């Protein structure tokens, strides 16, 4: 194979020496290096890859023949199936991280049945496709050596068990620790942050608290010449089984959400809500967009309206409890084309990792064909003091088209946000809103919602995307 000049390695795929992902002519490929040859052969020949593909646990790929490679070490070039929207653990709710953890352990269990093992257990190896977690790193498997420990045990505890225990027992917002710690939550930190009662849970005591203590105890110990002690396959299976039952035991039912009663306590009547839904649905159907970002989606009422077959909806909300409820609803309904994610729109996911390039910022994962910003702008303008010009500019970067709702200052929800403040937001007017949005968008349609102080706008951005 020859090195193609137009290929470029994808940032975030350089740690594993077995291969890497690269882009060429607008397509994504995964290179398998010569050093991984034997493991890859076993993955394919043992039936493990086929079993995992069939179970929906591993992303399917096809081998590419011909002149495609990114470096001379290439043994095989794979073309993996593409994920509609790449998300990261700091954007997942509790249930998503829990399902990703259980999928990882299920894969490890099946790998052992085929004489293989996972050599890493990073949460970043999991993505969501058709509403379910799927493992994307085809090169994470290696031949199991009898007596060897699970190399990925520490990483599994840092990437899955520690954040899940923290989200369950301390605060659901602690999933955001992933944004600071690239390799998962350090166990000593998790042990400090977890409440004392978790020390009474035997398996959290073992895998987190004693694990952290053991790491500290042996941190600077040099391994003296001593007999190696093998770890039995039964011990490995017992460890995996115990981790799975510990994860299954961690459950979180959100009691309420920041906006839990938003739809119930809304200030307009059911027929006004139905009218709003009809307008939004008609506008969406008119353009039938393949990708939709629902910003401030809450529990996903409008995401469901938008998620017709052939469309992929990403439902963002700042509240982990609302996202959890949305995700659980999707799982219950078998809704495959809505991806609920936690996102603070005023501080969206940045690029993180080496050179800030390993995990892409939100801005690089768009634009969507359509952005929904329903009952959102008054929160940004009033609660977060964002000027209309900034809001219009930010939204114009996210999608080619926009359905946005303007909530007048007289509306009781807007009044609630202004309560207790001396500032009266003199620039918060319909005229100012339209003037600023006209600088970034072409307004194609306007529909006031009868019986309310609210107006819906359908716009197309004037911005040109690459």
């Amino acid at each position, binding site marked *: 194979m020859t090195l193609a000049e137009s290929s470029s390695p994808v940032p975030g795929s350089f*740690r*594993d*020496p077995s291969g890497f992902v690269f882009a060429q002519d607008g397509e994504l490929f995964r290179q398998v290096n010569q050093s991984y040859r034997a493991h890859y052969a076993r993955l394919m020949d043992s039936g493990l890859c086929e079993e995992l593909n069939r179970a929906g646990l591993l992303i399917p790929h096809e081998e590419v023949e011909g002149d495609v490679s990114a470096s001379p070490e290439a043994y095989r070039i794979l073309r993996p199936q593409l994920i509609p929207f790449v998300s990261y653990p700091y954007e997942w709710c509790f249930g998503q991280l829990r399902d990703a953890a259980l999928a990882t352990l299920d894969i490890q269990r099946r790998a052992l049945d085929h004489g293989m093992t996972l*050599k*890493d257990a990073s949460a970043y190896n999991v993505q969501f496709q058709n509403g379910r977690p799927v493992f994307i790193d085809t090169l994470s498997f290696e031949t199991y*050596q009898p*007596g*060897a*420990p*699970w*190399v*990925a*045990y*520490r*990483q599994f*505890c840092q990437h899955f068990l520690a954040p899940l225990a923290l989200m369950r027992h301390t605060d659901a917002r602690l999933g955001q620790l992933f944004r600071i710690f690239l390799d998962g939550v350090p166990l000593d930190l998790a042990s400090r942050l977890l409440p*004392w009662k978790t*020390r009474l849970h035997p398996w959290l005591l*073992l*895998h987190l*608290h*004693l*694990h952290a*203590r*053991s*790491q*500290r*105890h*042996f*941190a600077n*110990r040099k*391994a*003296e*010449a*001593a*007999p*190696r*002690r093998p*770890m*039995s396959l*039964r*011990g*490995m*299976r*017992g*460890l995996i*089984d*115990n981790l799975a039952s510990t994860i299954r035991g961690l459950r979180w039912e959100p009691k309420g959400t920041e906006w839990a009663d938003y739809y119930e306590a809304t200030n307009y009547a059911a027929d006004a809500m139905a009218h709003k839904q009809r307008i939004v649905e008609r506008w969406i159907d008119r353009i039938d967009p393949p990708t939709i970002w629902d910003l401030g989606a809450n529990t996903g009422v409008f995401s469901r309206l938008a998620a017709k077959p052939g469309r992929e909806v990403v439902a963002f909300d700042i509240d982990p409890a609302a996202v959890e409820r949305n995700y659980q609803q999707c799982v219950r309904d078998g809704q495959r084309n809505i991806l609920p994610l936690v996102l603070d729109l005023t501080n969206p996911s940045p690029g993180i990792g080496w050179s800030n390039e390993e995990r892409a910022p939100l801005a690089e994962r768009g634009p969507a064909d359509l952005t929904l910003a329903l009952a959102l702008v008054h929160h940004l303008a009033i609660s977060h003091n964002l000027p209309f010009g900034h809001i219009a500019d930010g939204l114009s970067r996210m999608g080619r088209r926009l359905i946005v709702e303007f909530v007048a200052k007289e509306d009781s929800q807007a009044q609630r946000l202004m309560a207790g403040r001396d500032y009266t937001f003199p620039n918060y007017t319909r005229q100012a809103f339209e003037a600023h949005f006209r600088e970034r968008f072409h307004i194609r349609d306007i529909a006031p919602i009868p019986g309310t102080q609210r107006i819906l706008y359908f716009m197309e951005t004037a911005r040109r995307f690459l």
Partner: protein
Amino acid sequence: MDAECFMFCRKDVAFVLSVFAAVSLVIPPNAHAYLDLGTGSYILQLAAAAVLGALFALKLFWANVKSFVKVRILGWFKRDSR
């Protein structure tokens, strides 16, 4: 949790760890892993696997007993009653 109980827990943890250390006077195997196994993680994993492996064997044994009772004995009674 009061201070006395806190001290007890700390001593208890230290004791358990020293037992683990004594039982597991080992060095990590020379695996070709690109991830750092971590000496502390490895030693804890070995000790945990010894216990959890035994519990797993018991769990499988109990599942077999239940399956035997359900399929063979209850099945025999059902056939007999017919």
